[in-house]
């Protein structure tokens, strides 16, 4: 099991992390490229940047969202995201790993914080899952990935918690650690290809929506000729 763990933490991690990074860069660049092309084609190039910015920022300020519709969901989702992002990036054990492999380190979470943030992430992931199952409209809209993501995200948090904060015997420890690393790797691979792409695409949403309404000029003729409708009556 030990050699497996070494493999999962070493080469496999490097591979999956690279896939995530390149995948995210790819979709981000595709989006930017799409926006650029659309802007070039648009007949009206005047962009209401103030509106775009303020509409975009609204979603980054949790208080705003909580005060609007679905306050519970918004609260859970915000708290869930905080743990989800902060714990993996600033956990002492994780930062040490980075230091060992690439020699760079950054501030780390105090032990207590890590403890409580992990618990809160687990709790709020479950809350979101429950919300999805028992809210009529949410469950109607949900696809498989919408249920599977919170479940998948729970695995590294639970196994990580077990390893870091509970006294388990070494064999179990190794098993949990392997699960922890493997599920983490799986998450990395899936991020760019599923809805979690939102972590890089979100900031572009308002720009996309605004430019989408900026049509290219002379589409009437172009569409007519493609569809063989030239000269057809209204």
């Amino acid at each position, binding site marked *: 099991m030990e050699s497996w763990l070494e493999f999962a933490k070493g080469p496999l991690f490097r591979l999956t992390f690279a896939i995530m990074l390149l995948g995210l860069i790819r979709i981000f660049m595709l989006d930017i490229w799409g926006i650029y092309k659309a802007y070039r084609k648009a007949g009206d190039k005047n962009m209401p940047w103030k509106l775009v910015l303020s509409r975009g920022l609204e979603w980054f300020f949790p208080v705003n969202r909580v005060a609007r519709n679905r306050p519970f969901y918004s609260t859970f989702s915000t708290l869930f995201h905080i743990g989800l992002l902060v714990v993996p990036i600033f956990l002492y054990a994780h930062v040490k790993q980075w230091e060992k492999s690439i020699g760079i380190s950054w501030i780390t979470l105090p032990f207590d914080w890590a403890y409580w943030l992990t618990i809160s992430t687990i709790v709020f992931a479950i809350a979101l899952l429950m919300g999805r199952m028992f809210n009529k409209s949410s469950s109607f809209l949900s696809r498989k990935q919408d249920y599977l993501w919170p479940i998948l995200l729970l695995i590294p948090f639970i196994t990580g918690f077990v390893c870091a904060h509970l006294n388990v015997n070494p064999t179990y420890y190794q098993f949990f650690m392997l699960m922890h690393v493997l599920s983490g790797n799986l998450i990395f691979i899936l991020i760019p290809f599923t809805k979690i792409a939102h972590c890089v695409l979100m900031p*572009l949403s308002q720009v996309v929506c605004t430019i989408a309404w900026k049509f290219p000029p002379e589409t009437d003729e172009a569409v007519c000729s493609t569809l063989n409708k030239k000269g057809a009556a209204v």
Partner: protein
Amino acid sequence: MNTTVITDEEKQKAFKSLRKPETIEKQKLDVRYHIEDFDVSERPRRFLEAFAAILKHSNYKMALDHFIRMSAKCSRCATTCQVYQATGDLKDIPCYRSELLLSVYRRHFTIGGLIKGRLLGSGYLTDDKIQEMADSFWNCTACKRCSLECPSGIDHALITHLGRYILSEIGIAPRALVVSTREQLEGATKNTSAIPVPALKDTLEFLEDDMFEEKSVRIKFPIDVEDTEYVFFPAVSDFLMEAESLMGIAAVFTATGDSWTTGTGYFDGINYGLFYSDRMLERVVKKVDEETKRLRGKNILIGECGHASRSAKYFIPTYCGGKDAPLVINIMEYTYMVWKEGKLKFNPNIVTEKVAYHDPCNIARQRWIIDKPRELLKAFCKNYVEMTPSGENNICCGGGGGTVSIDELRTYRTTVGGKLKADQIRKSGCEILVAPCANCKKQLRELVEDQGIACEVVGLHDLIYKAIIFDDSLIEKEEAKSESLPKEN
């Protein structure tokens, strides 16, 4: 805002189709609006061809690619859609409605979808799916309120807009809109209400006489004047139904002395293209631009109409020269500007009823004009009340997206589309509801009538006409001069 879902009985009434069963059978399409006969063979193939052609020549692809990667399915939009709030039918959730078209896009226009479809041999677009889209896309009033609530930034109104456009290319579009647009673009009268020029002139002369009677001021509707500051395009139906709004606008221009004109070559601001076809949108917008150029007018002035204002403001630059296109302004912006410059005076005591202002979605949703009409109203209405939510987050009148012009949808509009609005009006207790939009006015009048709410619906300039005080130099009858002065309290 919390509301209750309508009763089964109301639902049955709202969704009852007025079309003959034979027509439904023949057109192989069970929707609630009338459609001209169209080719029913191979609809899925033709739908996909139209979709492909549109994607090729537009900017939609970029947005669709973004949307299919993003959607979080958080169901926030459900809490804002007035249609879903009224029907409680899960299929009316904006995100579901959008998914109808997004799934076609994913399956037929992305590599992943094509491969999956090939491997599993499934998911090809069917007639049933087209039927569902034809139904669903016209349930939406295109108010765009849901797009404010979507953290993924998915613009459901854009998707509905695109869906209707594609459907129209295969012949599925409400007859009422198509017939009007045909008259506007190819007919003899060149306007959606089929008003001949002589009739227009008669109407305007008649209104001028009326106004002289009432105000003792020679208020004019200048026709075909060249080189004016503003060329005026109201919703043409105003000439038939909203005389008071037009009178208010003419009164403002008389008070300021600025030059403006209505052109007899083309005088219709209505643009149903915005509701069902980008191709028609482009054609209509170009007509407005042409007429402005013919008259060598400087700016385009749109009357009290939300969709006419939005289609001109956002699409004149698109289709008529970008930065070089003429400036488009809405009449409320003009009136506000001249009032601020001190060129307008109002009698502050004239309107004593409880007045509320309804934001037309097409004017407020993008934060275009929100405070200006309110400030104007507060200048001469003693009892102004606000409805909540309002402004950019306003609730749609329930007749947006062209549905107000489709008479067979009236019951739908006044029981489903406008239910939330009706609740809001009732709660505000207003006696006069100001709606500076031809579509909103018609819908709101039908709404208060069908829902039994005692409230009068008027335009902003209807009240301005009442409140405006002219300079003595303009008043021709001696006895009228003192009358027009504000009375002491």
